[in-house]
């Protein structure tokens, strides 16, 4: 029986584990096979405090993991399957194993939102990507597009400039969610072009990507553009659907009340799975700390 089971291994989950283990709570962290969350898909993280020159996303996650392990967190690289929150102790199942915990912190984060257009799914890894730092290398001297208008789209485009010949950012609006500094960097780069008010409606190609169909949202005109790669950065979907009985909002974000509590007593939440506003590594880490402190308090109150 664990005092706390943390589900998820991004900044929220690992920070929570650092705090619960230091509070001497027996902690299990279900990390997932692809542990480390979204930062595993990035390069240089420049806005995480404490790293004056920035830090590589995967390095940051490895360090957080080691820190949690140092204090005794038990970390399993298995995928979460289901949870039974109907009565305590809570049962959490991952792959073939099941675990019992007095409390749970949900920190499952959010996954890439794909375009969901014809031709996309079967070409993931064959020209369709959500990880420019991983895959940009394979597009040396080629033409690629990045779909999206936020910071991650700008980062993907900037990473691609090191390899690709020309990068076109396709965005469905004419305004950007991206921060000014990231947008300015993208706009200043001579390799990056923009197509605004437009959406990709189909991915073309047989075995690999050969082009896209683009629709202009203002004129409804459809055109074809030959490209070798498509980097999708239109946002993320919160990983909340596997939690039965947990209240979510209309977009799937877990509803939070009164300091990181869910609607179920003893089940807490932290990070991108509930946060539709900030979505930063440092806020996720902060939420993880808060949820851990709340879980600790709840456990001591309930054990009298």
């Amino acid at each position, binding site marked *: 029986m664990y005092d706390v089971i943390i589900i998820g291994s991004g900044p929220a989950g690992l920070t929570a584990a650092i705090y619960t283990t230091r509070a001497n709570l027996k902690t299990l962290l279900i990390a997932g*096979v*692809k*542990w*480390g969350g979204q*930062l*595993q*898909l*990035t*390069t240089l993280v420049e806005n995480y405090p404490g790293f004056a020159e920035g830090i*590589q*996303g*995967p390095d940051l*996650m*490895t360090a957080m993991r080691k820190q949690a392990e140092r204090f005794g967190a038990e970390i399993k*690289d*298995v*995928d979460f399957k289901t949870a039974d929150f109907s009565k305590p102790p809570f049962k959490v199942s991952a*792959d073939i194993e099941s675990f019992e915990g007095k409390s749970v912190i949900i920190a499952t984060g959010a996954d890439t939102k794909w375009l969901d257009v014809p031709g996309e799914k079967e070409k*993931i*890894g*064959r*020209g369709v*990507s959500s*990880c420019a*730092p*991983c*895959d940009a*290398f*394979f*597009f040396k001297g080629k033409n690629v597009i990045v779909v999206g208008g936020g910071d991650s789209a700008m980062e993907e485009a900037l990473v691609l400039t090191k390899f690709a010949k020309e990068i076109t950012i396709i965005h469905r609006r004419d305004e950007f969610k991206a921060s000014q500094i990231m947008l300015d960097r993208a706009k200043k780069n001579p390799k990056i072009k923009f197509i605004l008010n437009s959406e990709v409606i189909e991915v073309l190609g047989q*075995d*690999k990507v050969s082009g896209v169909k683009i629709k202009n949202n203002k004129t409804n005109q459809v055109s074809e553009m030959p490209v070798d*790669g498509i980097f999708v950065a239109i946002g993320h979907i919160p990983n909340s659907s596997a939690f039965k009985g947990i209240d979510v909002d209309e977009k799937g974000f877990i509803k939070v009340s009164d300091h990181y509590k869910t609607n179920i007593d003893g089940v807490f939440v932290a990070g991108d799975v509930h946060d539709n506003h900030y979505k930063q590594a440092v806020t996720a880490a902060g939420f993880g700390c808060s949820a851990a402190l709340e879980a600790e308090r709840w456990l001591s109150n309930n054990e009298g």
Partner: protein
Amino acid sequence: MSDLNFTDQTFKSEVLESSEPVIVDFWAPWCGPCRIVSPIIDELAAEYAGKIKVGKLNVDENPQTSGQYGIMSIPSIVFFKNGQPIRTMIGAQSKENYKKEIEEILGN
């Protein structure tokens, strides 16, 4: 620990002309998901020693081989048998998934 590293120079003799099936982990140091897969590959190398050859190919240093097999995303785990790529698994996956594939290839 798998210390078997294939290169553009050794690929033909070590992989294509191998008498046993070969698993090649196409990776690079700058890829986060590759770091997730790397220790799993090491474990597989130990578990299947003598039955299947398991090694890694750094795409950064060996662009010729990765280009030849159309690698466009890493990690890509490619299974070779009798000099032919017979299966490609793209993206970090569980050890069980890799094992399932290996067992199938070994005919178990």
